């Protein structure tokens, strides 16, 4: 299963990239744990998670080609 992961704003300062692809992750908790292992500074960063452009509040199952986005605090306007 292919999952697309998008990172924005200050989070890309940590990861150095804005797009990551992961295979064999079943849910958003797994994605987050995997990212925190690879980029420890993410664990102490403020962000919310969106799946397919909708912000989620709990662990969410993913399907083929789901897009998971990590969104730091908004500052538009």
């Amino acid at each position, binding site marked *: 299963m292919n999952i697309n992961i998008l990172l924005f704003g200050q989070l890309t300062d940590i990861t150095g990239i804005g797009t990551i692809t992961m295979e064999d992750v079943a849910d958003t908790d797994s994605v987050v744990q995997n990212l925190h292992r690879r980029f420890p500074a993410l664990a102490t960063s403020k962000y919310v998670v*969106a799946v397919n*452009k909708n912000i989620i509040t709990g662990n969410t199952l993913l399907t083929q080609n789901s897009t998971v*986005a990590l*969104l*730091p*605090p908004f*500052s*538009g*306007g």
Partner: protein
Amino acid sequence: MTERKPKNIFVEGPVLPSFIGESIQQHSTKTNIGAHSIFLGQVRADMVDGKSVTAIEYTTYQEMALEKMHTIREAIFDKYTLTCMHVYHSLGKVAAGEISLFVFTSSAHRKAATDACAEIVERIKSELPVWGKELFENEEYQWKENK
């Protein structure tokens, strides 16, 4: 079956005052309008630790932002009796003193336009996935956070 496509609100660089003037001009043929309310966000040269902000560089999660803006637009049209509503938000660099947000509502009577405009601005600031990176004179920067 037609699904209304979300309108693009993003413009590259600052919103120009002349564009705002032209947008206003375009409403002179809509003679059922009695009131326009406009909000403009301008980049401030804030001082942070003795350094001043020279520009803000905006990025977005565009697909999500446009869907969200579409939802906001529908909600506002349901709630207020508006003749029209226009929103423009900058992407990329906007220098201090330049305009990065232009919200424009029109209605027959003033209360609808005024209240709708204020509500749209609040929702844009809290709900749109847009990020502003405040750039200083040197290569330094900091990420802005809306309150």
